[in-house]
C-alpha cells in the first residue's frame, strides 16, 4: 500500500476513484515509523548525556582512562564508522536487487558490530577487574584494589554514568546486530543466535557480568522467533533501508558517548 502511494502521480491521477494521495513525507510508512522511533530514542540518550555532562562539569571528576582504554575506544569507533559504510553499501545492493551482495554487506556490518561488542566487553571486564564496579555487579576473582576502586567509592557517579551510558548503547548495538541478522539470514539466523547464547552462557565465567548479560541474546532469540513466525516474509530493499537507519543511529549515538565518556576522562 505504501508503495502504491509512492508510485502514484498525484497530478495525473487527481480525482480518480480508488487512488491514493501522495504521502505527506514522501516516504513509505515503515521509514517514517523508524524515524519517529529514532527521534524518541535520541531523547533517551540525550537525557543520559545531559546527566553525564552535568556530573562531568560540576563534580570533581576523575580522569582514570589511560592510553590502552583510549586506543581500544578509538578502534571501537573505527569499527562502528566502518560498519555504517558497509551498511550504506548493503542498502545500495538491495536497491539494485542484488540479493547476494546485500547479504554480504549486511554480514560485514554485523562483523564490525560484533567486533565493537567484543572489544567493549573486554574493556568492561578489564575495568571491573581493576575495581571500577557497581553494587549489583558480581565480584570478579582476583579483583584488584587500585585507582578504579578509589574512583568507584569516591565518585560513585563515575561508574554509574559510565556503565549506564555504555550499557544502554551496547544493548542497542546488540539489538542492531540481531535485527540485521534477521534481515540478512531470516530463520537461518535463529540457530546461530541460539548457539551464540549457549556458548556465551557456558564459556563466560560466572563471576563475569556478561555471564548474565548474554541473556539479552535469549530475549532477542525469542522476539526474533515470534516475528519470523508471525510474518515469515522475504525482506526487501525497504526493510534493508529501515534496518540501516537504526544501525546508523547506533553509530551516531556513539559519536557523542566516545568523546564525552572516554576523551573527557583521559589520564593527564
Amino acid at each position, binding site marked *: 500500500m505504501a508503495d502504491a502511494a509512492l508510485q502514484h502521480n498525484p497530478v495525473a491521477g487527481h480525482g480518480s476513484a480508488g487512488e491514493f494521495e501522495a504521502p505527506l513525507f*514522501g*516516504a513509505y510508512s515503515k521509514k*517514517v515509523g523508524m524515524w519517529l522511533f529514532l527521534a524518541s530514542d535520541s531523547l533517551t540518550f*540525550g537525557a543520559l548525556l545531559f546527566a553525564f555532562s552535568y556530573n562531568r*562539569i560540576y563534580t570533581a*571528576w576523575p580522569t582514570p582512562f589511560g592510553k590502552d582504554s583510549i586506543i581500544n575506544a578509538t578502534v571501537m569507533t573505527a569499527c562502528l564508522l566502518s560498519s*555504517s559504510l558497509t551498511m550504506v553499501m548493503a542498502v545500495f545492493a538491495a536497491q539494485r536487487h542484488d540479493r547476494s551482495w546485500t547479504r554480504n554487506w549486511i554480514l560485514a556490518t554485523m562483523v564490525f558490530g560484533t567486533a565493537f561488542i567484543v572489544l567493549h566487553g573486554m574493556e568492561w571486564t578489564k575495568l571491573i577487574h581493576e575495581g571500577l564496579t557497581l553494587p549489583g555487579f558480581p565480584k570478579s576473582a582476583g579483583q584488584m584494589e587500585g585507582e578504579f576502586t578509589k574512583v568507584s567509592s569516591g565518585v560513585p557517579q563515575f561508574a554509574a554514568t559510565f556503565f549506564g551510558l555504555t550499557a544502554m548503547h551496547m544493548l542497542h548495538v546488540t539489538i542492531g546486530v540481531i535485527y540485521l541478522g534477521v534481515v540478512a539470514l531470516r530463520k537461518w539466523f535463529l540457530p546461530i543466535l541460539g548457539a551464540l547464547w549457549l556458548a556465551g552462557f557456558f564459556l563466560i565465567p560466572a563471576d563475569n557480568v556478561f555471564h548474565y548479560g548474554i541473556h539479552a541474546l535469549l530475549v532477542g532469540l525469542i522476539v526474533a522467533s515470534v516475528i519470523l513466525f508471525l510474518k515469515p516474509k522475504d525482506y526487501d530493499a525497504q526493510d534493508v533501508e529501515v534496518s540501516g537507519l537504526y544501525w546508523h543511529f547506533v553509530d*551516531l549515538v556513539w559519536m557523542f558517548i566516545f568523546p564525552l565518556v572516554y576523551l*573527557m576522562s583521559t589520564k593527564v
Partner: protein
Amino acid sequence: MHDVAHDDSKGQYFWVWGALLVLTGIEVVLGYRQVFEPVRMLEVLLVLSVIKSALIIAYFMHLKFEKAIMRWMLVISVTACFIIMYFFFFPDAGRILRLGVK
C-alpha cells in the same frame, strides 16, 4: 523508497567515512593532550560530535535526500526537544548546587 538513480554517487560515502575518521582522530588528539580546560573541552568536543552526527544523518541516513518537510520536521522537533531539555536540566541542576543538598 529511494530511487536508485538519485544524484548521489558511492564515492561521496567514502569521503564522508574518511571525514568521520579524521574528525575522530582530531577528537582523540585534543582529548588525550588535554588541550583545553574541561568546560571548553566539553564545548569543543560537542561541536565536533554535532558535525559528525550531521554528516551521518545527512549522508548515511539519507536525510539530505528526503523531502524538505520530513527533513525540517525531524531536525526542528528533535533540536527543540534538546533545547527545552537543556533549559530545564542545567539551571535546576545548578540551583541544587547553589542551595546545597540537605
